[in-house]
């Protein structure tokens, strides 16, 4: 398991937030879940756990 903080892709009413666990605010809010996933993969180090949530907060997938 990665020792760096997890990154969550979380639904917002106006899009999808990319947020590092422990951060006070989202790093970025994108229009779609796919865009948010691409952004997270591009901007966080390899090995960082990225958790993609559904709109209801449950887990869609771990990357």
């Amino acid at each position, binding site marked *: 398991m990665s020792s760096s903080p*997890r990154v*969550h892709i*979380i*639904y*917002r*009413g106006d899009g999808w*937030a990319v*947020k590092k*666990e*422990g*951060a*006070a605010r989202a790093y970025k809010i994108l229009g779609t879940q796919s865009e948010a996933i691409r952004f997270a993969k591009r901007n966080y180090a390899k090995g960082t756990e990225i*958790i993609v*949530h559904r*709109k*209801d*907060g*449950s*887990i869609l997938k771990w990357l």
Partner: protein
Amino acid sequence: MPGSDFEKNVFINCPFDEEYVPLLRPMLFTILMLGFEPRIASERKSSNEQRISKIRELIRKSKYSIHDISRMQAKGKGEFARMNMPFELGLDFGCKEFGQEKLAQKKCLVLDKEPYRYQKALSDLSGSDICSHGNESSKLVQVVRNWFIENESCTSLPSSTKIWDKFNTFMTDFYQKRSQEGFSEDELQMMPVKELIGFMRDWLKGSSSESGDL
């Protein structure tokens, strides 16, 4: 047992089915994170106890209540409307109206999926403040949180965004840890409410003792 405090108890009147789980979970989490105690008829299942007796007891013991009437409509032709939710809403209204002393202080939040839709079936409630969640989990968190701000004399409750983000992190830990313990996807989806509340409470206790957000 937690939940004997009238001032902190929140009676929840909602459907108990798989379809409603995406709304029930964040509702329970929000109530706990705001320092209140969710009380729900399914917290205690006993074949020799009438459900209506449990409901009456919970309504009497709870200063707050949340009634979600978004599912009372019949789904198909020939089906009956689901009247339990409006019935329990009526019981709660009656308890406040005709109850004495602390029962007269009761406050309730009525939820539906769309604004004004309830007027077609419950026109007696016209003019009341009914909040809509649009069937969205994150919106429900916002509605419930804002209602507590309006009805409790406190200004330092966490934002709905913070609650929602924290709920998402809880779901991550919940699924990860419970899966490792052998719970199947189905078991996690339809976990008994009392058990789920216990997990949430323990997780919130643990997360508040750590530094940091989310």
